[in-house]
């Protein structure tokens, strides 16, 4: 491969950051639009339509999911291994924390929104990435 060829790993990272930035902007916009509609003109709409509008922000989240998948397919074997190991650790840690919280929720701890599982998983992924990456430095 010639040195002038664009490194596919760099290209994958650049594409991911662009797609992530656009998706997050779209996410904020759809949150604003859906909340404005639900608390405004759609306050009296049928529940079916309210569900559809409430779930609108899911569209950019799906785009982010696609961006993550494309990124994982575009990076080299070590970066992919780091991310897959991190995802596995994050999934395990989140499951453990969800199970532990489920045992005390309601009786000894306040009920939490399912949204916290997502937030916990993303935080766990970030932390796991940091430690898994250190193994190879």
């Amino acid at each position, binding site marked *: 491969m010639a040195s002038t060829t664009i490194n596919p790993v760099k290209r994958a990272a650049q594409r991911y950051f662009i797609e992530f930035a656009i998706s997050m902007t779209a996410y904020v916009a759809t949150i604003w639009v859906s909340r404005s509609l639900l608390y405004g003109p759609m306050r009296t709409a049928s529940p079916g339509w309210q569900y559809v509008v409430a779930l609108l922000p899911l569209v950019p989240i799906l785009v982010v999911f696609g961006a993550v998948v494309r990124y994982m397919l575009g990076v080299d*074997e070590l970066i992919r291994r780091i991310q897959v190991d991190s995802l596995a650790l994050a999934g395990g840690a989140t499951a453990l924390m969800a199970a532990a919280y489920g045992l005390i929720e309601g009786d000894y701890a306040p009920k939490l929104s399912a949204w916290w599982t997502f937030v916990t998983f993303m935080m766990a992924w970030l932390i796991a990435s940091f430690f898994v990456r250190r193994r190879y*430095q």
Partner: protein
Amino acid sequence: MKNRLKVLRAENDWTQAELADRIGVARQTIVALEKGKYSPSLELAFRLSKLFGKPVEQIFDPENVDGKPE
């Protein structure tokens, strides 16, 4: 797994980033390979072999494989 990547890279006067670009991996991967913290796949080992024009066993030390997983 020990290897001669750092020496071969120096002989060609390439930086880690240049080597990474030549074989299409991240610089982080070159760092891990040179430090022996990561053993490459067969495909990556053969790409390095082709780039340096040397057999795989002249780049990676087969005597150093202890059979333990990474």
